[in-house]
């Protein structure tokens, strides 16, 4: 429950107790966190971490991939975060985790592929596949397809 409260407090510290005024701005931020989307993404050319397109929305569609394994970058792995990435192109992409997460002591984030209990800094995503990345533990993305 501490983590849950922490998540809520990040957005709406007034969200406790009985009827009260709340910040519309913060409520909007929550709505964005849960529902925002980005279409028309082009994966970063070259396939490197440095070139990776930074994903920002809960729902992202990668529409353009110039070369096989061009890359995108997940946001910071913060518990409760869910990122949906649809690759609707005929080429695979590389999905990177952040190299340094300030919310986790500056340690690198990692991705846990399906059926693997070992985290890796990046993971491939096949053509015409939609993956979901869940964060339950700070710094760790768990891949779902």
């Amino acid at each position, binding site marked *: 429950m501490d*983590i*849950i409260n922490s*998540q*809520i407090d990040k*957005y*709406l510290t*007034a*969200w*406790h*107790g*009985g*009827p*009260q*005024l*709340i910040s519309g701005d913060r409520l909007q931020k*929550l709505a964005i*966190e*849960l*529902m925002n989307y980005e279409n028309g993404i082009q994966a970063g050319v070259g396939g490197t971490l440095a070139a990776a397109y930074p994903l920002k929305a809960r729902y992202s569609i990668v529409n353009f991939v110039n070369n096989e394994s061009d890359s995108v970058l997940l946001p910071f792995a913060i*518990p*409760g*975060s*869910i990122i949906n990435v649809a690759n609707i192109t005929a080429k695979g992409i590389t999905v990177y985790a952040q190299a340094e997460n300030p919310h986790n002591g500056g340690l690198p984030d990692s991705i*846990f592929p*399906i*059926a*693997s*209990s070992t985290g890796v800094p990046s993971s491939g995503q096949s053509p015409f596949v939609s993956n*979901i990345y*869940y*964060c*339950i*533990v700070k710094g760790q993305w*768990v*891949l*779902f397809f």
Partner: protein
Amino acid sequence: MSQPITETLLDQYLPEWNGAPKLITGQLLGNMVSAEISVESDFAVTPDGSHQATQALTQITGGNPGDSFLLPLAIPGTQINVYITTLATFVANCQPSNPNNGGLPDIIWPLLATIPSTSSDVNGAIIQSFYCPKIGVWFTNF
């Protein structure tokens, strides 16, 4: 498309969320957020299956292969995502009686199943999602 669906989901829990600006119940709003982004990272399954997974994102770190846990009451709109950190296989059991459904037992439809069951295997090192689109009924992606 998302706006009417969202309003329907919210309205069934928070009828005061309609119309002009007004005071709302912070606690209920917090509960709504909890249903969306709550996490439990040190969940343990047990031989008797008595521990109930209640958080939107649940990571199982303890237990022995074949141990089990309990899904919450199957209420439409609920989704529970479970991740096992090892390669062990555990069992998710449905509630034996759902007071929101006349006391009937909840059931689950595993992937490709032709008949429902009251339990489902949960494989290791994957996210398994349990979602309820109908009262008393869980579906799962594996």
